[in-house]
């Protein structure tokens, strides 16, 4: 067992010597910068795509919320619908007040 262990240890050393650090080829740096550029463009386009999806989702959500909150075509006969101004509404509400006052004066 120990003999095998020693042989294995020697083999590691021999392997280290048999595999010296290789020199990079002349295209190493240009290819690296090319890859960096490609990755940069990819990252930008991913962000752009995400931004588009986000905008679309926001518009859709706004339309859906608008459709839910604006009450159109659901007004029944029981519901009061005012088309006049606030003053018109007040006048309509108290239209009998004058009649009551006049009637009381007649009794005297």
């Amino acid at each position, binding site marked *: 067992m120990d003999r095998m262990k020693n042989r294995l240890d020697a083999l590691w050393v021999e392997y*280290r010597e048999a*595999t010296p*650090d290789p020199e*990079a080829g002349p295209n*190493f740096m240009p290819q690296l910068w090319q890859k960096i550029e490609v990755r940069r463009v990819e990252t930008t386009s991913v962000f752009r795509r995400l931004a588009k999806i986000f905008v679309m989702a926001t518009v859709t959500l706004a339309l859906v919320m608008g459709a839910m909150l604006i009450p159109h075509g659901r007004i029944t006969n029981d519901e009061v619908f005012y088309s006049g101004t606030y003053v018109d509404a007040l006048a309509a509400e108290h239209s009998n007040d004058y009649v009551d006052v006049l009637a009381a004066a007649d009794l005297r």
Partner: protein
Amino acid sequence: MLVDFELIERARSGDDSAFNQVVQAYRKRILGTIARLIGRPEDVEDVGQEVFLRLYFSLDQLRTAEVFEPWLYRLTVNAAYDYLRRQRRRHESRMSDLSEQQVMMADAAAGGKVNVEEIRRTKIRETVDDLLGKISEEDRILLTLKEVEGLSLKELEKIYKVNENALKVRLFRARQRVLKAYEAGEPDAGG
């Protein structure tokens, strides 16, 4: 450190020429480590470029320039690990594939141009690559960093982000497994 902290700081802040200098300083060492980790000379530059590509896009996450080297080694280990896993999957579908090194040696031998020393070296490389191919990618990388690259336990701790005891256990188990594979592959392993 092969470069000073200031250069790393400049590269970290987006200076491309500083990054270029950092790559040039570490290129040879990293390519050597990759060559010994993956055992296929024809793919060393590709994996090396992947390491520096990852470095470029992760430099802003580096806390301080002092931890640059373990950080770079971790990127190297991760890229080698990814490569070995891909290679194992590919290897399962193309068992007869020869490495460029083997093809070159076969061509040279056929032409009678190869010297004895080169044959010996190639045999050692093949023996160790074959041996490392019999254990897991994790064991292969850990053993190569410790036994071949000669990294200390302290350096390995920083790369693996585990404590010394956990690392010793991992190393012990990896050594046992590789020894077992070595014994199984040696014809005179009986004594």
